[in-house]
């Protein structure tokens, strides 16, 4: 399996002096194609910090982030924005849908701003995989939480990103819906052979994952590996 993501001795410190917070202590990390990885840990332990560094939204204080062989740490904001667009799919806790676009138009927007676009058939397949074909004419405000999250996943999967980052994607869902979403992530990760990293509070969801990491006080440790 090919390595998609590599973190080398990455740290993140917020503030300075006695207000200094070491949100992420020296971390080495690796993720391969086809892996679904969960990160669990208490509130304030540094999970979101880790994820935003991986996603190129936050610069680490030291160390390097290498995505598909490219050193993200050395890039300008403009280049990182480009990497986010082409290589990374984000799924956020709150809906990341655009309120004034219908489901179909959310996809259309990606079609406009991204390269390597999906063909009509591929998009149909994506709709079908996520069970959102019926929803394409609807606005986000007319969708249920679970439906919204499925659309968000569809968006993040559009044109096959190298890596999918999800920060508590199931937080706003009841447990049935949460399982559904995790199952879906698992299926898409396997079938598209991408890499997904999911931050979650919910330890019941980790059974879907290949690897589970635990974050405590900025220290990331492998917790469980499902064969």
């Amino acid at each position, binding site marked *: 399996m090919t390595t998609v993501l590599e973190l080398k001795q990455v740290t993140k410190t917020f503030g300075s002096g006695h207000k200094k917070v070491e949100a992420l202590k020296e971390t080495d990390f690796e993720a391969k194609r086809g892996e679904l990885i969960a990160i669990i840990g208490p509130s304030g332990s540094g999970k979101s910090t880790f994820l935003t560094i991986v996603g190129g939204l936050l610069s680490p204080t030291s160390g390097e982030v290498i995505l598909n062989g490219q050193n993200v740490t050395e890039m300008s904001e403009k280049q990182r924005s480009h990497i986010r*667009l082409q290589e990374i799919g984000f799924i956020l806790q709150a809906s990341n849908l655009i309120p004034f*676009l219908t489901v179909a138009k959310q996809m259309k927007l990606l079609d406009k701003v991204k390269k390597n676009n999906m063909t009509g058939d591929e998009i149909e397949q994506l709709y079908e995989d996520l069970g959102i074909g019926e929803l394409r004419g609807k606005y986000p405000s007319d969708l249920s939480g679970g439906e919204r999250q499925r659309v968000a996943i569809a968006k993040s999967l559009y044109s096959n990103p190298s890596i999918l980052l999800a920060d508590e994607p199931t937080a706003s869902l009841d447990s049935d819906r949460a399982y559904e979403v995790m199952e879906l992530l698992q299926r898409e990760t396997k079938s598209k052979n991408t890499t997904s990293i999911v931050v979650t509070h919910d330890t019941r969801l980790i059974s879907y994952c290949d690897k589970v990491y635990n974050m405590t006080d900025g220290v990331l440790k492998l917790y469980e590996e499902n064969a």
Partner: protein
Amino acid sequence: MFLAWNEIQKNKLRFVLITGVLMLVAYLVFFLSGLATGLKDLNRESVDKWKASGIVLTEESDKSLYQSSMSIEQLDDVQADETAILGQLSAIAGNGEEKANVSIFGIREDEFIMPEVTEGDAFTGDNEVIADSSLKESGFIVGDELQLSSSEEKLKIVGFTDKGRFNASPVLYTDLDTLQRVKFGEGAQTNADRINAIVIKGDMLDDLINDEKLEVVEIETFIENLPGYTEQNLTLTFMIYFLFAISAIIVAIFLYVLTVQKISMFGVMKAQGISNLYLSKSVIAQTFILAAIGVLVGLGLTLVTGAFLPAAVPVSFDIPTMLIYGSVLILVAIIGAVFSVLTIVRIDPLKAIGG
């Protein structure tokens, strides 16, 4: 354009409101510009009709036709391609029913300031005049006998010409002899050589005149010095400029409020890697759509209103000027959108998605 247009479609009311405000501002701008053009015409159309390059007045008159008085013989001191003499008198003329403030021009019919007759005939005999057609709207007709406020003489309208208003009064064109009789009464004989000005065509040369008491005034300068002309113009121009500034501010505030409401949405899009350029272009495109619609509707409304206004309201729409003002309005609206663009560029996607 994609984002811009879809957002407008979804949130119609919001955008109809902004467009409505822009439309009203555009309406006001166009109307004021129509009024400005109308008032200008009222003052200058008879002078514009000459297509002259300058006018010779006496030095002491301080560029006022009314105050200038010279002798016809001074024509010899003027070296121009073409010349036309002009005598002038302001008076009140009445046909028994209607009265009007008029300006009487004494001219020679073979010189270039002789107007073209659009109805009736040119003056040939004593006391015959060609009147400006605006007098028709005030109830004067061909054949009317006119009493004058300052003279026993009676004038007779034999024809009409269009675009013959000078300094807000319709002009009666007649020959110089008739003017002298009206102007000087008993003394007409002795004053037969008195005229107010010599209008000239051709290049404006420095050595055009060799008489120290005379002064050549360029036509534009002459018009600007007509009583009230510059003041009126400046007032309206200032109002129009203020409206430009106001519309920029209105658009800036409206769009800024909308943008601030959407900060987290923009943040999410930026987190997903959609570039500042794309988002900024979308806001600019949106502003352009709104402003263009507002301006076009405003323009249509202005023209419709103009068609229904009574003739007494001095509006006249100069389409090139209106197009320029319309473009300026769209441009200032876009400048107003720059604040929103700056806001978008400054959004930190990290804050927007909240860890």
